[in-house]
């Protein structure tokens, strides 16, 4: 009798605790639901760069992809561009691809930016913000590191240094 009461009470309390626990967990994580999860396959996308060449992320399996989102008005984005360019020159023959996505500005602005910083890696414009939505982009700059299996191994918000860009590219080098 006493034992049964204990069991019943325990079961009821466990059910209630589970319900409350789930609600709290779901509430706390609802704002941080990321479109991109570390260790999961990166959302696929396809964009045409400023030279008219089409880049589809899933075509680059077997290579590491350094995916960077930026805008011309974003100062930290501008400051990290030379570092990315320098590391790109070093790693482009070692199986590391750089894809640089502007968040939807005009061709004029983006081309001026490319010329100003003498960027040689592919730059593309996400005109209708589809890719940004798929990646849940909010603050800029943001960089995703995708390994040769197409999995996101790291994401970084904020300006990079030469050292971190190098380190990141080493991490995804196949």
């Amino acid at each position, binding site marked *: *009798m006493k034992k049964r009461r*204990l069991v019943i*009470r325990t079961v009821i309390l466990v059910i209630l605790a589970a*319900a*409350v626990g789930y*609600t709290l967990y779901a509430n706390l994580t609802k704002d941080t639901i990321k479109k991109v999860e570390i260790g999961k396959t990166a959302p*696929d996308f*396809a964009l045409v760069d400023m030279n008219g060449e089409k880049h589809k992320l899933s075509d680059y399996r077997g290579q590491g992809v350094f995916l960077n989102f930026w805008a011309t008005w974003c100062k930290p984005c501008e400051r990290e561009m030379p570092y990315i360019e320098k590391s790109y020159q070093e790693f482009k023959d070692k199986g590391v691809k750089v894809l640089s996505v502007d968040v939807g500005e005009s061709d004029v*602005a983006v081309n001026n930016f490319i010329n100003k910083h003498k960027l040689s890696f592919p730059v593309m414009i996400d005109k209708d913000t589809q*890719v940004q939505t798929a990646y849940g982009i909010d603050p800029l700059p943001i960089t995703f590191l995708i390994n040769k299996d197409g999995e996101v191994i790291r994401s970084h918000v904020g300006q990079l240094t030469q050292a971190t860009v190098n380190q990141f590219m080493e991490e995804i080098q196949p």
Partner: protein
Amino acid sequence: MNEVKCECGHVNPHGTVLCESCGKILEETEIDKKLVDMRYEGSARRSQTYNKTIIDKIWNFFSSVKVGVWLIVITLLSSIFGTILPQVMYIPQNIPALEHYETEYGWFGKLYYQLGFHDLYSSWWYLLLIASIGVSLVICSLDRVIPLYRALSKQRVSRHEGFLKRQRIYGVSDLPESEEDFATIHNKLKSKRYKIREEEGDILAEKNRFSRWGPYVNHVGLIIFLLGGMLRFVPGMYVDQTLWIREGETKAIPETDDQYYLKNNQFIVELYDKEKDGEVFEQALDRAGGVVKTYQANVTLYEKKGDTVPGEEPELEKVKDAEIRVNEPLKVNGLALYQVDYKLNELHEMSFALQNKETGEEFGDVTVDLSNPDKLYDLGDGYSVEVKSYFPDFEFNAEGEPATKSRVPNNPAFVFEMKSPNKPEGEVSFVAIQETIEPLGDNEYKMAFKGVETKNVSGLTVRKDMTLWILGLGGLIFMIGVVQGAYWNHRRIWIRRIDGKVWIAGHTNKNWHGLKRELEGIFDGTGIDVPKDQLEEEARKG
């Protein structure tokens, strides 16, 4: 262990005050009282002896009504606190929340933010309070409804003398001369819809017992309601998203996995018209001026065909044209798209003419798409205009260089290079709204402003709420419980023959006056006295 056997032979759980079967007082301390406490029929609702394990301690904590009341009071107070300043979702989103609270409300606002009150209703501790009320509700109810049910179903007809004489309605009469009086009483009880049980000449008349379950039905409703609220956190049950969409723009509808796209053809704000909309409105319109009649977005819904990834031009198949008005949403795949906001006259195109400053002669018009200007506008005959730089949201940055704040064309500015047969090397002109700078000296030509084309933007809300019917069901059951408990009274009348006397006792869970009136009717004209209200008697004596 610790079970209490009453002299009537019934075995009661530990902690029972009144025997479930005969009503004899089992708790010593109750014997001195003039009236018994009839709450929960004196059943064992919470036993302190089962306080040994941590489970029992938690259980007993939540089973206390006192704790429940405090939880409600604390929740109410904190809810009130959340209304002192606007919550974070209602403040302007363009500056950091802390900054807003600090500049608007000073140190209090800062503290308010730092303590987390800016997002009080989804803070973990507020949810925990609500959840605790839910837990308290479940445990309190279980701890009371089960013993109460036991006591009411185990009660026997002949209750103990000690029980009868400690009822609020109680009286003793001599036995009437004929048995017929009992038959009359029996019939009168019947006609008042009492259910009658008889044992050895004793009578228990009872009606509306279901009214006792009202509070518990009410609690079940509340718990279903809370459950519905909880389900909002389950993915797929609840969606509340915003979709801003310009005229002419096609965008994927959120939460549809990019399967559905929406094109905004036109956004309309229509005002009431005095002439057209009838005289009824005339006075109101004179007083208030422009009154909006409709906010409407004319849209086309598309479904995506084939497999494209984000960034690729999706292959779209038209589903239908629709008009979205306030309260008339477009339903797509379980989602409802509501018209909730708008932005009028967002700059879309600007046109200029290449003009000779001296003669005013024009050499052709240039229309610039502000979301993506062309690089070169060839006007023929050796005249051309090149867009060297474009700043959609122009400002001078910290270094004093022209820059843009965003990609929205709020304040477009251009650097044009104008070429003409006279000036084949080109002249550079910086053109912003109401402002022209010629950085390389006096130019012969200028870009004369011709006009702008604007577009409206619709703000839509994408909503889905699968929990509404659960909330409705909870509310309905809640109300059924209230009605059940409020509009019926559980009444019982005991009639016992003891040693040539008739003992009568009555009990109701509320509306004692009603019970007394009923008793008067029942015993009137029989040889038995109407039982008295002992509380009233005492008041009269004292």
